[in-house]
């Protein structure tokens, strides 16, 4: 029987979330921003599954599936936007794209 404390699982999720947050704040490339958002959503899902593992209940895994759905919908729209922005502005720099008025 293995003994992994609950905090270590949540700690791993928190560190993953922190790394994703740093990436989201630091990078200027739109593709990197989308990847960082994927990391953030994944970290939240890992926290849910850790909680599910602590209680031995399936509810946390159900929440992970919902997070998966949100990530899939977000990334499909986000990548379509990235293609449009690249076609219109010939760049993926989020500083350039900060100009909203068409």
């Amino acid at each position, binding site marked *: 029987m293995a003994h992994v404390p609950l905090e270590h699982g949540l700690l791993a999720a928190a560190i993953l979330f922190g790394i994703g947050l740093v990436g989201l704040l630091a990078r200027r490339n739109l593709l990197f921003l989308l990847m960082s958002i994927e990391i953030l959503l994944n970290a939240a899902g890992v926290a849910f599954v850790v909680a599910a593992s602590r209680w031995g209940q399936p509810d946390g895994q159900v929440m992970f599936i919902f997070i998966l759905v*949100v990530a899939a919908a977000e990334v499909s729209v986000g990548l379509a936007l990235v293609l449009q922005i690249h076609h219109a502005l010939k760049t993926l720099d989020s500083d350039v794209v900060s100009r909203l008025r068409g």
Partner: protein
Amino acid sequence: MPILSESGFYIFSGAAILATLLVIVQRSAVHALLYLIAAFLAIGGLLFVLGAPFVAALEVIIYAGAIMVLFVFVTMMVSPGSEASAAEARWGLVRALIGPAVIGVAITAALVQVLTHAPAVQLAGDAVSPKEVAVALFGTYVLGVELASMLLLSGLVGAFHLGRRMLYRDREAS
């Protein structure tokens, strides 16, 4: 049946953290994508060790498979020269990382401090079978499934509309 193992948990979480760290410091988007696939596979292993085999399979199939394929296609379609950012080139990646790293470390430290003051609880680590997950998903959370289907439909329509044609054709950047 408990499938939790200490060595598996620490190895997979360490690999996931290392690969995720390597994602955000890459200059090339393709290299970052490869590390992101490694990170998702490591997280998949972590979920399996935590006793969630169904979700681990979903992580590998959907995240490391489908979503990463989307990323790879889009990275192929945008030209490589557009990856460089003027701000990142001007500051350098290390200097650009300092401020966000301070914020990220502060937030993570706050989380860690809360977590270390929690009472010590061991993870059960019993494998929750896909059948139990399905019963909960289509029983208790069936409303969420309907909402998720609507979200996916709107995502499909939105992606179709945005990708249908080039909305802003031949407009210059300046």
